[in-house]
């Protein structure tokens, strides 16, 4: 492994994403090529068919709401028809359709469907490009963070997204753990830490026992559908409702453009209210008036009290989850030595106050609660790829939800309980129930309910080609393992013969291998054209500059030629080269441009020489 190979840590957020690395032992955020540290997790297909990512995509969201995907993280790894997805479909301006297998979700953009990991991959590719611009070379190795409460499907989806973006995902780590890692970096911590991570779309609580540079997670809890977006939605609903009252029932929800403006305004007002006690929401010409009347404006004041009133139950929910997680960890509030607030939503004073009250201590916050997660990811990438003697950090994370299988009667039987340290594995013995049975079907689930249907189905596995024998005589040992990424693997073997048993996955919420290959190939084409376009533009600019210089020298060269008998042929040839270069630019012909590049350089040298000989002046090129 190359010692200097660059690596990155990525916080792939619901609303914003951040990329970071470690340089000379110091973790730091990599700013985008336009100078911002936060890149909006927004992807759009512009009217001219171009893919836009980040700020560019967010800026045009109002006028192109149907083709702008935001909050893709809320959909990644989810199943078509799940309540969360149904809920999302009601409010999202872009269209969602089921995938070819009917299990996963696709977003419809400009008449084409995109798998959710593909969307996230565009954001990741943008961050990768930013990092490559920063390092001046290719970057492939990355650690990506996910909410601790993400299940297997959501983690797998995120990993797929990394692969599509051309990244080798060294590790998927949990956001709160990552934050704790960044917070504890360079400190000698020996205490129990509670991390409260309220981000754009997800809420996580982790209880860690930190000591000797080992970050040992005891318990995690959370809600993958609770975050800033929900706070915004309360404000939007309030605005829509009061607007309808004021203007004889104009329903803004029918107007996608108006909704996008409302969404932006609500988010802005919410952020402003963390600093001030009142925020003005002013949206002129929000809707056209009914029956030819003049357009109507929205003009309202939102106070901090009102915002807190609208979102009180959300804040209460975070505290409930935190309390439950403490109980799972077997840790009393008094034993917590540090409370860490992470995520943009923890800037809200009411959230801080609730945490302070519950834990009875002042919570700690980094200067940039949005950046700390990416920094932790970079530290973990560094620790994994360039382990240094004496400076080892080790993350010991846990699995957030029970992993189990469907048993007779529709019940859920736990195989690996939640809050088990990963990597881990557990074996389970299955026997045939009929004579000459040759296959066994196993449904693998994740969740907290006793009833199988209330849990997330990770996949169905069919063990086939079993030995033909009397019932109960064939015993299959199925091994369930959870990797350090929190991703579930299943393998099986015949416990009598020891032969490995083949497993077929029949239903998952992710991409199939074939689809993955197709996307990767498509992406390769896309990248190739993108790179060629980039090369062309760079060469064109350079060629233009050389031509301009030659043109600039041309009058003096003519002057010199008039005095001399030499060089006329050479100048004619040079002018021919310039002509061909111009033609190549016109035709956008990269090959031709490469071909004339060298000759053009020689022509420039010739002109410089001739012009210099004619009139050595102060402007003589060095």
């Amino acid at each position, binding site marked *: *492994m190359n010692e200097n190979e660059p690596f990155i840590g990525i916080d792939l957020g619901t609303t914003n994403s951040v990329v970071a690395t470690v340089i000379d032992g110091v973790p730091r955020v990599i700013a985008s090529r336009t100078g911002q540290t936060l890149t909006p997790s927004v992807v759009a297909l512009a009217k001219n068919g171009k893919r836009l990512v980040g700020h560019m995509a967010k800026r045009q969201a109002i006028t192109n709401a149907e083709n702008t995907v935001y909050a893709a993280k809320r959909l990644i790894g989810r199943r078509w028809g799940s309540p969360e997805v149904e809920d999302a479909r009601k409010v999202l301006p872009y269209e969602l359709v089921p995938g070819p297998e009917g299990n996963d979700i696709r977003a419809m953009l400009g008449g084409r469907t995109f798998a959710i990991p593909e969307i996230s991959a565009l954001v990741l590719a943008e961050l990768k490009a930013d990092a490559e611009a920063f390092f001046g070379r290719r970057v492939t190795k990355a650690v990506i963070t996910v909410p601790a409460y993400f299940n297997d499907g959501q983690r797998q989806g995120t990993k797929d997204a990394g692969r599509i973006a051309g990244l080798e995902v*060294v590790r998927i780590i949990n956001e709160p753990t990552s934050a704790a890692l960044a917070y504890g970096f360079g400190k000698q911590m020996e205490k129990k830490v509670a991390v409260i991570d309220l981000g754009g779309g997800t809420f996580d609580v982790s209880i860690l*026992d930190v*000591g*000797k*540079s*080992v970050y*040992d997670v005891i318990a995690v809890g959370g809600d993958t559908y609770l975050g800033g977006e929900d706070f915004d939605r309360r404000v939007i609903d309030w605005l829509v409702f009061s607007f309808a009252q004021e203007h004889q029932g104009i329903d803004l929800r029918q107007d996608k453009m108006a909704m996008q403006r409302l969404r932006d305004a609500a988010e802005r007002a919410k952020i402003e209210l963390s600093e001030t006690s009142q925020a003005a929401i002013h949206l002129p010409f929000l809707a056209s008036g009914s029956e030819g009347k003049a357009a109507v404006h929205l003009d309202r004041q939102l106070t901090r009290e009102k915002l807190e009133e609208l979102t009180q139950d959300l804040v209460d929910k975070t505290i409930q989850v935190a309390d439950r997680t403490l109980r799972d960890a*077997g840790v009393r509030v008094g034993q917590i030595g540090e409370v860490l607030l992470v995520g943009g939503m923890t800037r809200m004073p009411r959230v801080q106050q609730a945490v302070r009250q519950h834990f009875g201590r002042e919570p700690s916050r980094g200067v940039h609660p949005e950046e700390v997660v990416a920094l932790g990811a970079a530290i973990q990438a560094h*620790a*994994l*790829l360039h*382990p240094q003697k004496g400076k*080892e950090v*080790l*993350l*010991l994370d846990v699995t957030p939800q029970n992993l189990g299988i469907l048993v007779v009667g529709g019940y859920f039987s736990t195989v690996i309980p939640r809050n088990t*340290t990963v*990597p*881990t*594995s557990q074996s389970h013995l299955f026997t045939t129930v009929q004579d000459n049975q040759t296959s066994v079907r196993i449904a693998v689930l994740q969740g907290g309910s006793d009833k199988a249907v209330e849990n997330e189905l990770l996949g169905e596995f069919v063990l086939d080609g079993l030995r033909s024998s009397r019932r109960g005589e064939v015993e299959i040992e199925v091994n369930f393992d959870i990797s*350090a990424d929190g991703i579930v693997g299943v393998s099986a073997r015949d416990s009598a013969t020891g032969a490995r048993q083949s497993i077929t996955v029949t239903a998952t919420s992710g991409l199939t291998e074939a689809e993955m290959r197709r996307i990767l190939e498509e992406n390769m084409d896309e990248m190739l054209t993108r790179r060629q376009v980039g090369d062309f533009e760079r060469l064109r600019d350079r060629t233009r500059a050389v031509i301009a210089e030659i043109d600039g020298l041309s009058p003096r060269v003519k002057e010199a030629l008039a005095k001399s008998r030499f060089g006329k042929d050479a100048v004619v040839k040079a002018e021919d080269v310039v002509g061909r270069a111009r033609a190549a630019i016109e035709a956008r012909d990269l090959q031709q441009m490469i071909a004339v590049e060298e000759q053009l350089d020689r022509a420039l040298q010739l002109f410089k020489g001739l012009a210099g000989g004619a009139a050595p002046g102060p402007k003589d090129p060095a």
Partner: protein
Amino acid sequence: MRERIVDPANARGLHSGGRLTAGRSPGEGGVKADRYQGFLFNPADLSEDVDLEVDRRREILYLAASMDGWTHWQALGLPWNASASEARDAYREKAKVFHPDRFQGRRLGAFRPRLERIFRRLTEARDALSDEASRAAYARKTAPPEEVARSAARSIENDVRARERRARLARTNPMVSRAARVQELMERGRKAREEERFGDAARDFLTASAMDPTLVEARSLAEDAKKRVGAGKARDLWEKARTAELQHDLDRAQLHAEAASDAEPGEPRYVVYVARLALLRGALETARGRAEAAVRAAPSLATAHEILGEVLAAQGESGPARKALERALELDDGLDGALQCLRKLRWSFLR
């Protein structure tokens, strides 16, 4: 969780079976061989093409093959009964060495599953030992024999000491001394009750109950003892009544029987007896009152119905009398008195 209870003395000597040959090659010398308790390494494992130093390989092979047979403490390299926090610290140190993350990017071959197994075993040990309750239970199960003997001796010692401490407290502290006094009364009462000195028992329980009104047990025991005292007295009086009856002194018999019935108010048999004596004396009204009372008090007592029937028959109310007698026979078909009386009522011409 699987329990691993083994004789710790032997645990470190466990060998993994199979085709193993001596692992110590002459070149490497036997310096570290003792650490592995004569464990036999497979040269094929030691020469696998992986990015691991030979020492690390030995350690991994040895641990992966042996750890499953060790106690949780041994797995973490700790002495028996080490504390929960020691277990957590040891786990962190070991995890830093054996966590698969420590070997990221290296070729591990067959050593990867071994490392994963070691890490899993360490985690299992930590999980079992970091919870105080499960740690204590595990300590009891895995205690070496000399430790069992020592702890038994300690617990006996503790009992003696605790009793002394209680006695000392009882002398000095009024609250405690009161409690001790109550305790003493209760114990004496129980003893009296066992010896059937119910009067003494009732007195002790009553006193205890008065000193500590919250002591429900004392009150109920006192009630019970009092009842038993009454029953004893009633039986004595009944004996006297029977003697008087045999001496044909029915008036005296009546008096004693009434007294017996008063001494144990809940007992219907005495009431029946009183009614019978009244009938014999010809005091039909008294007899009827008592008989009716007996039936009310014990509706399933055959003799109560029998005496009522006899009294009613004597009063000439043959209908109700027949009903009462039939009920008596229904409850007990061996009642001669009732049978004869009924027969007389049915076949009145026999008279």
